[in-house]
């Protein structure tokens, strides 16, 4: 087990501070950042206008006319320290998405390689992907685009030395125990194991960016013909369903 976390609260901008639990993407620091973000959402300190969780940190923007940076730091440090000392598990999800995806074949050109490096058959690898207890760890790089994890420890695969030429929108790619579901066609050094008709960002949809950090994610494996049908729907949800957990 890693050494204890030592959270830091650092100035990030004229109107922002960063609560950081670690420099690297350690699972315990990820859990702590999620717990911190959840607590801040539920009980937002006066003057805080925006809460944005990253992998192991939470950015808070504040209104300097309402609260000073020093006062905010004084209020946040005991809270962050208490969370770090508890070595928390990720908080329970508030919502659970089930997202249909096609794995392998032309929609997952690297599935066989990934399964091989895990000592699994492709079917077994897909089973692990679909059974994993996954959360949206953070959203970023592009609007609505989720970093999802954590896959079982064996999935701690390095990024590829070369970028994959281009993966399509909806590509389900894996590396470092995480999944990214691309919002738009992109080059990537991660391995594409599947593809979904779920669009993480559609500007004209009522909810352009439906996923939130902390949401639970479960993939369901579907045949390519079914995805072709789902991709025709104008809502861009690709047949994904969401269940509110209370």
């Amino acid at each position: 087990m890693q050494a204890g976390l030592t959270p830091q609260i650092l100035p990030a901008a004229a109107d922002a501070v960063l609560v950081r639990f670690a420099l690297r993407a350690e699972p315990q620091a990820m859990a702590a950042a999620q717990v911190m973000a959840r607590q801040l959402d539920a009980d937002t300190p006066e003057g805080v206008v925006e809460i944005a969780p990253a992998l192991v940190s939470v950015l808070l923007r504040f209104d300097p006319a309402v609260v000073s940076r020093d006062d905010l730091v004084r209020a946040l440090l005991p809270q962050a320290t208490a969370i770090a000392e508890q070595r928390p598990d990720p908080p329970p999800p508030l919502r659970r998405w089930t997202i249909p995806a096609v794995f392998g074949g032309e929609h997952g050109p690297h599935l066989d390689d990934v399964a091989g490096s895990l000592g699994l058959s492709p079917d077994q690898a897909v089973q692990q992907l679909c059974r994993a207890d996954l959360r949206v760890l953070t959203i970023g790089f592009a609007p609505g685009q989720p970093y999802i994890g954590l896959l079982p420890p064996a999935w701690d695969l390095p990024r590829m030395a070369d970028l994959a030429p281009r993966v399509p929108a909806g590509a389900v790619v894996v590396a470092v125990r995480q999944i990214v579901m691309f919002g738009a066609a992109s080059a990537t050094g991660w391995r594409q194991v599947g593809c979904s008709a779920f669009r993480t960002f559609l500007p004209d949809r009522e909810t352009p960016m439906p996923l939130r950090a902390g949401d639970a994610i479960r993939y369901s494996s579907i045949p390519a013909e079914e995805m072709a049908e789902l991709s025709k729907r104008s809502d861009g949800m690709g047949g994904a369903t969401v269940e509110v957990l209370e």
Partner: protein
Amino acid sequence: MTAIRIEKVAGMLTVQDIGRPGHLAQGLSRGGAMDRLALIEAAALLGADRPLAAIEMAGAGAHLSVAAPMRIALTGAPMTAMLDDAPLRWHASHLVQPDQTLRIGSAQAGVYGYVTPAGGLRTPLWLDSRAAHLNIGIGRMLNAGDRLDCGDDPAPQGASRIVEPEARFQGGELRVTDGPQTALFDDDVLEAFFSTGFTRGSRANRQGIQLDTDSRFTSNHAAGLASDMIGPGDLQMTGDGLPFVLMAECQTMGGYPRIGRIVPADLPRMAQAPAGSTLRFRRLTWPEADAAFRTEADTLREVAARCRNLIRDPATIPDLLSYQLIGGVTAGRELEAGR
């Protein structure tokens, strides 16, 4: 509701306002005008109580006409401007009539010029903003023939106003505060960074601006950093140790280490630094930065207090041609009282 029509385009034109704050958790950066001060100066000139949606023009402008009499403000990078045959002063507001053509040419200094109608552009909203965010497919570049809805000018008979802009169109010194990753750089790297002169590189757009110099600035802690939230003004050191300044349309999350952040008040100077201009950075302590910090609302009040009437704006002189006794155009300036 009235409109501005774009007759001819020379630069890269988009609609911009103050952007969309509040969506970082969903991966959406604020976006909005590259030179936010230019929108504030326009609001001050037009007597508006907050920044309005404007046309942002990169490098050069356009030929424009209006559907109803309206005041427009010209701010940001000074560009040549003519209303029919009369030269117009930049950093000023002017009345434009429907039968006139406003011709805006190349930037004389700086990069981004702005045309702001007194009623504000009323193009469609997305997440409470009209700003184009080209990187993610929101809005688009404007073309000849486009008709942009505008609010009516609440006071078309209002006097033309001028303001001395904050000088920011030639590069210069930029103030920087420490960020969450500044401590990842060794002291000698920091010292070298703040004593180096940089050139604004040729790779620059609404996402970011590359800086050039012979030295390199790297951190021994760069490998394996967890990505975290990034934002406009961040001085991100790419793999080879050259800084890349993040600007309005930057991504929200990044993994390269950042040596510091340009203070918001100096970001317009960064945006307006022309290719090849020289930039230096000065490190502020946080108490110094906090003491210098002004909200945009405060800045608007301060700029509004500096605006004054432009006496005898050529555009409002009906028999202007009779004043041009030597042929050619006037420089405009000699028509201004007090100069």
